[in-house]
């Protein structure tokens, strides 16, 4: 009786979903791709009156607050309207709803930091079909789904800088480990690849050995206990590189309260406000990051440039982003902010973000 009912419940749905398709497996499909049709007019003016919306991974995150400040400043300079909106949880599904809403409101420029490289694509396509320029920043989506990506830094450069800072602090000798964000975080994995390649090929790093990569999931507590696990698993560890702001702060907090303080070097990407204390108490010598405010500003200018027809996303196009200066569009429609800034005891008090 009940069994029959269960089948009743599920069968029609399956039938519906199954209808019209047969035997689809991985790798068969694909279609669609970016279509750059319009041509750029490098001499065009920035349009005024554009509407800008910034959609962060989640609101309630100081990093994105800083970016939004930069973007808002740029929007104001360009005579546009700016809105900062987003979900309170960092999930792709909630971002989709926000993208849908924004595309309905026919926002001109959408500045997005994506929670998932693929889940947002169909919504973004709709938004773009409606005339919205989609610029991702901080965290990209599939290149086919957006107009431009504003990268905080060049992957190679981040990886190299991180490795360089670590090497300087431990005289390029000994075991090192990496405390990353999530295992599938695109940025972090690219940087880690660069570091691994450099360690293998660069003779000046011959005495350094990467013994472990662990993931703190960009959660404070997890990163904290992962740091602890690292130190227990590798008694001879000399340095930890944490290319994520959450990770480095947690690791610093752990180190500062233990006997390892000053013994194990810690470097990576962090915000000055979070790291100030640990630089002052000697836990951390030097770390790096880009300026999120400048990143937001550049994203806004990039969006405005695309919406005004100054650029289309083709490689080699050039535009001016206010006081930030001149930028060139790279391959895959990527605009890069520049090399990361290094922070240490000398300069950390000059920054507030």
């Amino acid at each position, binding site marked *: 009786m009940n069994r029959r009912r269960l089948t009743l419940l599920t069968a029609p749905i399956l039938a519906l979903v199954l209808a019209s398709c047969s035997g689809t497996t991985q790798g068969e499909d694909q279609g669609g791709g970016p279509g750059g049709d319009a041509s750029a007019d490098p001499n065009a003016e920035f349009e005024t009156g554009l509407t800008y919306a910034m959609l962060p991974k989640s*609101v309630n*995150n100081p990093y994105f607050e800083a970016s939004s400040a930069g973007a808002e400043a740029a929007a104001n300079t360009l005579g546009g309207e700016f809105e900062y909106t987003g979900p309170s949880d960092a999930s792709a599904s909630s971002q989709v709803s926000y993208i849908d809403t924004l595309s309905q409101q026919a926002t001109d420029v959408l500045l997005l930091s994506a929670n998932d490289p693929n889940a947002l694509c169909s919504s973004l396509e709709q938004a773009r079909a409606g005339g919205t320029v989609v610029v991702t920043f901080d965290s990209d989506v599939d290149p086919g789904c957006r107009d431009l990506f504003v990268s905080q830094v060049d992957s190679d450069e981040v990886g190299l800088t991180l490795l360089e800072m670590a090497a300087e602090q431990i005289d390029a000798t000994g075991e090192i480990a990496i405390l990353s964000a999530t295992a599938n975080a695109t940025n972090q994995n690219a940087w880690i690849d660069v570091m691994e390649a450099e360690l293998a090929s660069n003779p000046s790093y011959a005495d350094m050995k990467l013994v472990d990569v662990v993931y703190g999931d960009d959660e404070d507590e997890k990163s*904290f206990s992962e740091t*602890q*696990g690292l130190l227990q*698993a590798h008694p001879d560890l000399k340095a930890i590189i944490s290319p994520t702001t959450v990770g480095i702060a947690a690791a610093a907090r752990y180190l500062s309260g*233990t006997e390892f303080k000053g013994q194990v070097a810690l470097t990576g990407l962090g915000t000055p406000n*979070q790291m100030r204390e640990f630089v002052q108490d000697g836990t951390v010598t030097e770390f790096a990051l880009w300026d999120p405010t400048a990143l937001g500003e550049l994203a806004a200018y990039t969006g405005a440039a695309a919406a005004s027809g100054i650029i289309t996303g083709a490689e080699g196009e050039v535009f001016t982003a206010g006081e930030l200066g001149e930028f060139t569009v790279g391959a895959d429609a990527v605009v890069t902010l520049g090399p990361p800034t290094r922070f240490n005891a000398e300069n950390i008090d000059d920054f507030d973000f």
Partner: protein
Amino acid sequence: MTAVEARSDSATATGSAVLDLVLRFRALGLVLALAVLVGVTASLNPRFLSGQSVRDLLFAAAVTLLLACGMTVVVLTRGIDLSVGSVLGLSAYVTGSALSATGMAVPLALLLGLAVGAVCGALNGAIIHFGRVPPLVATLGTLYVLRGVVYFAAGGSRINASDLPRAFLDFGSGHVLGVPYLFAVSVLVLAAVGVFLGRYRAGRDLYALGSNPEAARLAGVPAGRRLMTAYVLSGALAGLGGVLYAARFGTVDASAGYGIELDVVAAVVVGGVAIFGGSGTALGAGLGALLLTVIDNALPVLRIDQFWQQAIVGALILAAIALDRLVSVRAARALRRKGSHVD
């Protein structure tokens, strides 16, 4: 009369033996599981038992332990408090802001956290008792509402370690005789709650309420007052937990304590507190919290894929409740058999 007394003596022996077995079995089982886990981990990696590592563990256990005490009190009355995570977040944010604004002393901050939590707890208690809303629904509602309040208050701001007074951060990271202050606070609370539940009339009333609400009414147990006590206590401890959280992490943002309620309920359930009230101890819940934390900490040390952690916790909850069920069925059968002998 002498014959009766003799019988009474033998009955005493068997009766309490069964009871003790049930109780001790539970605590013993947890201690045993802890010992095995620590033993295995330490044998694979001796540094797991180093002073630093143990301190880290105690740091990590402090907040869950504290919240588990409060949850125990509520669960004993057949209730549940899902709002603890949000209360913790609110209290952490409020005390954090107050600390960074005024630089107040640590004890004052602890009191403030307690007060914020107690107010939230009183809100829960009032909705449940006066509004006759089932605890699950009421606290699910306040889980949302209070988190919303935190979001409103905090927005995208974050309180950083550098904003907090030095003394407070020292309190968060310091330890005495190898025991972190935070853990010491939790253990003190655990002991106090344990004594309250075990040795005070009001505490015993909570067991009575959970064991048989109708009988409690007949026996004149002031249900309303006791329920309020339970929820205020749970809220206050969650509030205190917020202060400890702020002290431990040094940074507080709007998401502090998000989702922690499930860990706490898990600790309590694993610790042998019956989800439908009436039985269980604060000590058990404390051991449950400790066990979960040890698992958390042992996995990276054992180099077991961290992805297993949550699955293990889930399996542990199921095992714990199934085991309790088995034990109580056995015990009931034993008691019944004994009962028929007395007749």
